[in-house]
């Protein structure tokens, strides 16, 4: 189901890339390619641990006893298709031009290559950061590192922003570092392109070289990095051996007061599980920041519309996490309530962040009269619709299919 959601998301992104690229002038394409790089950097800043860790094949890898190089190759084989998929929209933005496919081909290819280097380099850098984080994360989790942070957390009133297990703090800190690096590369490439047409390639090439160099440095000892990182995420995500649920402040039952009484227990249980597996708050914050950046930069309305659709799709598709076997044993779920009620439950789970969407869009409308309050309400309605559709799809893939199989 998660693969289907990823393919759907990529399909929508590609479709919108084609729409945006149709008839676009070279300057417009260059700007669109920068937005693409920005979006890819934001995605790479967040997703590696969620798609790579803990490695689901670790038992088999131990049986086969893959070498350090083999383990690195194994993880790269899981990561590179994602980086490759992220390149597709860039290719479409740069090259789809039915009216004049060969016009400005040289500059188009140059800027595409520059973008691919930045996206690929950010992807490689993000992989290197996250895939080797295990020993440091475990030290934080066990209180052997991060004492300053814990003191700050104890005295901070904004503890909500820090409501992750201590061991995940290094990963949280990696997020702005990776995203920030992506932004710096994009700005540097834009600046250098004014100096010489090919200079636009330099930042991405340097980033790729640096990421490759860092990865190469890990090869001889990658077995330790792999097993330590997988072990840490196994403990933190699967609670192997009894990780204490009190490591983070879970959502209290009263916090779901806005959910109808009949669905409140299942929504509460779902949100608690989801928070432990996929802290979506980080993604939502990054999403809103990107939205404001787009408006601040006076981006074309097509680009903003594309971004909002993607943001809503990703935000709502995250509910698939709740249908994984560890969170949704179907036989148990069907003893609790019917598949139709699970659709409604997951719909409410998806609505958790909708108020933040509405407020963010109203804020934009307040400062940007061309957007308007009506548009803010319509876009929020689209988010609600996608919340319902994604709840329906993931429940169809889980409880509906299970009941059909054993009916």
């Amino acid at each position, binding site marked *: 189901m998660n693969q289907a959601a990823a393919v759907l998301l990529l399909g929508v992104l590609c479709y919108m890339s084609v729409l945006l690229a149709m008839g676009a002038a070279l300057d417009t394409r260059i700007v669109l390619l920068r937005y693409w790089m920005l979006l890819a950097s934001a995605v790479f800043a967040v997703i590696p641990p969620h798609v790579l860790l803990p490695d*689901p094949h*670790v*038992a*088999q890898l*131990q*049986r*086969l*006893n*893959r*070498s*350090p190089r083999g*383990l690195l190759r194994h993880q790269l084989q899981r990561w590179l298709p994602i980086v490759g998929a992220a390149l597709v929209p860039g290719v479409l933005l740069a090259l789809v031009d039915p009216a004049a496919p060969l016009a400005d081909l040289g500059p188009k290819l140059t800027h595409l290559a520059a973008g691919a280097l930045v996206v690929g380099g950010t992807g490689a850098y993000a992989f290197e950061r996250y895939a080797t984080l*295990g*020993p440091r994360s*475990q030290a934080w*989790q*066990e*209180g*052997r590192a991060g004492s300053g942070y814990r003191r700050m957390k104890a005295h901070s009133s904004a503890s909500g922003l820090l409501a992750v*297990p*201590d*061991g995940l703090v290094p990963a949280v800190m990696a997020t702005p570092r990776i995203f920030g690096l992506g932004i710096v590369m994009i700005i540097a490439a834009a600046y250098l392109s004014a100096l010489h047409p090919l200079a636009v390639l330099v930042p991405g090439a340097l980033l790729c070289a640096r990421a490759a160099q860092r990865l190469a440095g890990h090869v001889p000892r990658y*077995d*330790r990095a*792999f*097993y*330590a990182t*997988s*072990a*840490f995420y*196994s*403990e933190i995500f699967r609670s*192997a*051996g*009894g*990780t*204490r649920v009190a*490591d983070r402040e879970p959502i209290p039952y009263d916090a779901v007061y806005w959910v109808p009484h009949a669905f409140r227990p299942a929504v509460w249980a779902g949100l608690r599980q989801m928070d432990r597996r996929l802290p979506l708050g980080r993604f939502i914050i990054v999403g809103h920041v990107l939205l404001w950046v787009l408006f601040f930069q006076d981006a074309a309305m097509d680009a903003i519309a594309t971004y909002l659709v993607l943001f809503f799709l990703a935000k709502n598709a995250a509910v698939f996490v709740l249908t994984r076997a560890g969170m949704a044993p179907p036989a148990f779920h069907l003893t609790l309530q019917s598949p139709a009620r699970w659709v409604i439950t997951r719909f409410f789970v998806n609505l958790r962040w909708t108020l933040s969407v509405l407020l963010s869009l109203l804020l934009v409308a307040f400062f940007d009269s061309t957007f308007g309050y009506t548009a803010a309400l319509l876009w929020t309605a689209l988010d609600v619709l996608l919340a319902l559709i994604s709840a329906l799809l993931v429940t169809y893939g889980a409880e509906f299919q299970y009941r059909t199989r054993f009916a």
Partner: protein
Amino acid sequence: MSGHASAGNATPDALVVDDLTKRYGQGEAVIASLDWTFGSGTATGLIGPNGSGKTTLLRLLSTLAFPTSGTVRYGDLDIHAHPYRFLAHVGLVYAEPELPAHLSAIELLTWILRERGQYDEHSADRIGELLDTVRLDERRANLIGTYSSGMLQKTQVAAALIAEPHVLLMDEPFRGLDTESTAAVFDLLNTFKADGGLVVVSSHDHTLIDDLCDALLDMRAPQPAPVK
């Protein structure tokens, strides 16, 4: 525990646990300052009630978990610093049989031998003999995804032994096995031990592994203690 308790002599290829502590998060230690030597030619049973740390210790010994402090050495090798070199000597039976569903047991064992560079002209016969020994019947050529829980367990045991390891780490290996298969696996482990192999096996029921084991380690937290 002060000083080194032991289930055998500290030969160069013993598994030596030194001042090992493991905690999850910042809570109480699940295992605290454990010193122990698992010697060659011995079997050590990890016993204790559910949640007493048996699986945690096995995860530590198999590099699926990393210690909060302390070391585990295999000869001169710090196993958590060099998992690949250590795992070359190890066969594993996991608590949850995570096996590739779209391969047969024969194909799985073939893959393991080829991957580890141990496949030769005698391997097919050896695979057949091992599967005979663990009493995996003619369905060994069927896809693993179709196996019963007992068949999965037999496949796991065979997968652990096929590469002729020196160390066997087994988490509840008799779970799901019928009486005859349990006896067959016991025979296999006794032979393995007699040939100089090192076995660490967990069970929530110590009567099941009492005969096999030279030592029993009661894992009731936080201070595991030998009871045999």
